[in-house]
């Protein structure tokens, strides 16, 4: 983890990223509209840090992660990894970049081939991207199993013989095989039991320390993100509404959505629970196929003003490294450049 992100270099630079999915309808499958899953977002990830990406179901978190890794052909915008622009690189040319960036998925069950043994699963990227001999590969797989705390004796077993937490370790070992710099962790603990989540999170932290890894940690679990992330970006309906250091975001959230989101999290302490003043949001998140005009939070915002219903709020830097997209801050701040 990082002490001062300011002194380290930017590993991932995302600018005005848009990912719109077409909606087709009718027998002719005519294009009738689009889901604006990610609708213009910008952020940096510094080398060696963990950027948390939070927000509710459907707000576009996974799409951001997948678009950055170019698992999609993006609609618009720029993505630079280690200084190299890959936003519009044709898929075949991305092959050489693949080893540097990897992904760990939410559902360890679904992301592992049930017919492959654990050693074959972990070794697969080595087959694809290296020319290691059989012995070298075997040694590397054993080393990876050690690193993620899987018993070497289980190398020839199949995924269904493992618990959820162990399967997630297999997925992590596989992601580490090619010595990546950057890993997108998409809800890596959401499917795990409470008592197993901490095991996996501690493992991710240890591996980061050992290998200097950079993480984008996607989660809807705000308390776990507070634990693991150095900086946190909050998404709502395809946009980043606030981005700040972990300390700033949890101690003094500025965007009305972040405030409501944090206040909604239950606290495992009956005395604190009694005292929490919750901002209960009314209604549901609008559809990303038809987002509201102006600020996309205006249909639920407790502090909505007239301007919010017509004008999209710009992003303001309200303190060093703390940005938010909300008209409430327009009087006292100037628009941020990035």
């Amino acid at each position, binding site marked *: 983890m990082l002490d001062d992100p300011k002194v380290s270099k930017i590993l991932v630079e995302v600018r005005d990223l848009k990912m719109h999915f077409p909606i087709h309808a009718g027998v002719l499958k005519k294009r009738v509209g689009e889901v604006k899953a990610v609708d213009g977002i910008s952020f940096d990830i510094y080398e060696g840090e963990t950027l948390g990406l939070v927000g*509710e*179901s459907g707000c576009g978190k996974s799409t951001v992660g997948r678009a950055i890794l170019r698992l999609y052909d993006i609609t618009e915008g720029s993505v630079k990894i280690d200084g190299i622009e890959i936003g519009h690189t044709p898929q075949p040319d991305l092959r050489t970049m693949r080893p540097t960036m990897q992904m760990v998925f939410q559902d360890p069950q679904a992301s592992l081939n049930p017919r492959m043994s654990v050693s074959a699963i972990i070794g697969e990227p080595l087959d694809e991207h290296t020319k290691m001999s059989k012995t070298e590969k075997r040694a590397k797989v054993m080393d990876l199993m050690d690193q993620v705390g899987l018993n070497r004796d289980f190398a020839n077993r199949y995924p269904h013989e493992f*618990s959820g*937490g162990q399967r997630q370790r297999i997925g992590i070992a596989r992601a580490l095989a090619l010595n990546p710099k950057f890993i997108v962790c998409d809800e890596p603990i959401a499917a795990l*039991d*409470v*008592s*197993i*989540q*901490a*095991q996996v*999170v*501690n493992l991710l*932290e240890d591996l980061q320390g050992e290998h200097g890894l950079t993480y984008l940690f996607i989660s*809807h679990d*705000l*308390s*776990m993100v*507070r*634990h693991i992330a150095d900086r946190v970006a909050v998404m709502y309906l395809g946009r980043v509404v606030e981005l700040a250091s972990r300390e700033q975001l*949890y101690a003094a959230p500025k965007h009305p959505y972040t405030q*409501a*989101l*944090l*206040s*909604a*999290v*239950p*606290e*495992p*302490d*009956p*005395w*604190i*629970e009694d005292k929490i003043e*919750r901002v*209960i*949001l*009314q209604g*549901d*998140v609008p559809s990303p196929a038809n987002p509201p005009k102006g600020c996309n939070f205006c249909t639920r915002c407790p502090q909505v003003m007239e301007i919010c219903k017509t004008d999209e709020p710009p992003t303001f830097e309200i303190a060093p490294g703390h940005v938010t997209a909300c008209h409430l801050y327009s009087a006292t701040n100037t628009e941020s450049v990035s």
Partner: protein
Amino acid sequence: MADGAAPVLNVRDLTTVFKTRSGAVHAVNSVSFSLKPGELLGIVGESGSGKSVTMMSLIGLIPAPPAIVSGEAVEFGGLDLLTATDDELRRIRGARIGFVFQDPMTSLNPVFTIGHQIMEPLRKHMGMTKPEARARAQALLELVGIPDAERRLKDYPHQFSGGMRQRVMIAIALACDPEVLIADEPTTALDVTIQAQILELMHELRAKLGMAVIWITHDLGVIAGIADRVLVMYGGQIVEHADVRDLFKQPRHPYTRALLQTVPRVRGERAERLEVIEGQPPILHAAPSSCSFAARCPFSFERCLRENPARFEVGPGHDAACFYDFDAGGPRHVG
């Protein structure tokens, strides 16, 4: 909460065993608890700890055979639900005992309107005419905070969001003024802001209707905010039982203690390193003959491997199934 009042539900020694091809699964092991009038009893435990099977067993929703449900008694409204006829159980379920399940999409029928599904128990159990049932259905939707209730009665489940569907499920469960409401992870599939709406609704409904509630969750935060009393389940057994404040202030089972330390929080101090409970929860293929937490327990000693601990009283209304005595700082002497 009426202390000392006769319980509305009294479960004694409930045990459920599944016979599967890969052997028996002892899902619920000698579970005993009671529910007082008007209280909210929280049940917390990880996946597979037996929370759902306990509830399904006590109201006859576990197909037996092949499963075997046994016990001393499940007393409700002067009946023993373990020996009640199917007909008696049908009249109780969905009427005097209401349910809300985790996934509202699987428990609502996609081909019928919401109105039809709320009216059904009213007509079946309360003998209402159609107009009577429709009026009450509308009132129920209003009660659970669905705007434009009259029109929405004609909508189908897919026209509602996840949070709205869960409100509808609550409306159906409340339709016949149940004495007991059983809610099995009703907010687990929901986003946190929608969960907050449902928890708020539950606080209002309890104040208004005063029924007794069993609320199942794996989220200690939800328990802290909503429960009066708590059962902690592990390996199909109740390992700790206490008033909510006692449980959080003085947890007396090593599993509860570890669980409280392992969860990160959004408020207050941030831990540099998460506490870990090593190992994984058990699947019991035989009735427990040792402590089922022993393999993961930092306090375990030889007795724990020989004997399954009974629930020892550790304070007023507070018991823990553990041989370790935290007050004495060593093995328990009595028992």
